């Protein structure tokens, strides 16, 4: 097993926001009574005149952010992912995305990462929803470094962005020289037998699975698709052409997320076996994060098995 430094994405995000605030006087931060959880409290301490706590009223916060963006600010809106997507779904769709408002939505506590709070607070259907909103850019970074590197790029980008963050410490994958490119997948390992594609912090488990596959004599490619929309179709099609088998891995319901996105591209343009690893269309449970990931479809063994199955399907194809 890989031993790695662990940092929580929300920590990198909180620190990165302060840097954005220093660099640009139009960056404002909005929170809904969870500034300690989202780590926007660092920004609040540094720039109190540009920090707005809206209380427990996400719908108002989201639409107010649209108004701010229409008047020249770059608002970063912060709350738990399930609230940013589902509680304030109409405000996100109508006032932010349809108007192309330059609002950045930081949807924290993504996936199962709020593990002990249980399914009410976990967010495993968010990607399916935000993917279906035209003109919304969707980013799901793989580690804390990618969050740090992505923030200035997203602040610079003119348009609505939905950024999914994880609550818990997760493996640091990238070095300081990592460069975030919006809309571009990152190839972590070249390979020819099968491609493992993931979004988000589950990449640590994917790399472990890849190590295991190598030990068993396979040569897997590993790609992190941190921009879920717009999708890097070139990288996906190259994988389909050159490896002929794909496994998608995501901390999300098996329906509607990365697996669906990749499957759509492959089915349309270059059909090949695609095995989807994710939470098997069920609400999860309360408990330790790693236990939940293992129990609800995202064990390393499950990823390895899916890869082998995909290779078998390719051979039988």
């Amino acid at each position: 097993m890989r031993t790695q430094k662990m940092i929580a994405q929300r920590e990198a995000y909180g620190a990165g926001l302060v840097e954005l605030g220093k660099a640009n006087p139009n960056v404002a931060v909005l929170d809904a009574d969870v500034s300690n959880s989202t780590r926007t409290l660092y920004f609040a301490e540094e720039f109190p005149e540009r920090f707005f706590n809206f209380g427990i009223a996400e719908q108002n916060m989201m639409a107010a952010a649209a108004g701010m963006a229409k008047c020249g600010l770059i608002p970063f809106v912060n709350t738990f992912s399930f609230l940013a997507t589902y509680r304030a779904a109409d405000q996100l769709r109508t006032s932010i995305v349809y108007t192309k408002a330059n609002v950045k939505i930081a949807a924290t506590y993504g996936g199962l990462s709020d593990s002990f709070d249980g399914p009410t607070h976990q967010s495993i259907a968010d990607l399916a929803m935000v993917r279906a909103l035209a003109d919304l850019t969707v980013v799901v970074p793989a580690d804390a470094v990618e969050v740090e590197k992505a923030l200035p790029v997203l602040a610079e980008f003119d348009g609505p962005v939905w950024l999914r963050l994880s609550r818990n410490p997760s493996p640091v994958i990238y070095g300081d020289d990592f460069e975030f490119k919006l809309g571009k997948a990152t190839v972590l390992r070249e390979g020819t037998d099968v491609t493992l594609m993931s979004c988000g912090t589950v990449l640590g488990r994917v790399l472990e699975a890849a190590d295991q596959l190598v030990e068993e004599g396979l040569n897997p490619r590993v790609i992190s698709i941190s921009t879920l929309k717009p999708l890097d179709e070139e990288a996906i099609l190259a994988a389909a052409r050159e490896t002929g088998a794909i496994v998608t891995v995501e901390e999300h319901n098996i329906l509607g997320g990365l697996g669906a996105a990749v499957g759509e591209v492959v089915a349309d343009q270059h059909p090949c076996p695609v095995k989807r690893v994710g939470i098997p269309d069920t609400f999860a449970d309360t408990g330790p994060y790693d236990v939940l990931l293992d129990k609800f479809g995202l064990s390393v063994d499950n990823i390895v098995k899916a890869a082998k199955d995909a290779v078998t399907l390719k051979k039988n194809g």
Partner: protein
Amino acid sequence: MDRDEQRIRELEQIANELRIAVVKSVYNAGSGHLGGSLSAADIITALYFDKMRVNPEEPDWDDRDRFVLSKGHAGPILYAALAKRGFFPMEELSTLRKCGSRLSGHPACFKTPGVDMTSGSLGHGLSVGLGMRLAGRVRGKDYRVFVLLGDGELQEGQVWEAAMAAAHFKVDNLVAIVDYNRVQLDGTVDEIMEVAPLADKWRSFGWQVLTMDGHDMGDIVATVDKAIAQSQEGPVVSIADTVKGKGVSFMEGKSAWHGRYPTEEEYKQALAELGEQGGADV
């Protein structure tokens, strides 16, 4: 007639022209919301032709006053006002609701010059206006933001989230106006879901409350002036007593005219009542 009175007569004349334009454009479109457009006609006239600092030559002027039509279904009256004010040609009103037109079924800010915010899903507008003023505070700008709300719309919980926040943040230069026409799609507001007592509700949320006759141009102009002055101290709402479908006798106070569109006969009668000289050509 003194100058002020002269000005009021001019505004009344404009409001009547806008009502005619609304009836024509909705008839021509084959659908649209007449009742709530006509009830808001005098208020919107006062804002766009007397109160708001806007520049049709430069619709995106950074320092302009903003208007958010939170009751977005009244889009036809906003379009008529913007066209008359010079943001786009009056003839374009005949493209309302047509595919490919700049005049969408509900206002869309990136489509239509002069529309400051997209609306149509009720309950968003006060939050948007609040955000616009918070941005003004951060950026050191004193533009004013006017938000027009429907009375039925006040049934949306988000309106009260926004009301609470606007008072909490002590925003200045934010003026809300409630088009209190007492009729919504399914019936009268009091029978569908009572929103009264409005003044008490807004006051208890920390707002300064004014009332006005939403069809008395002199009262509207004076009350909005007062609202602007008082908005330096915190958010102000003016509750406008209005009549749904105002100006066309058979539409007045009728929930059926929230979203109905007129037959040819009704259309001709409506124009005749509004004193349209040019006849019924659309």
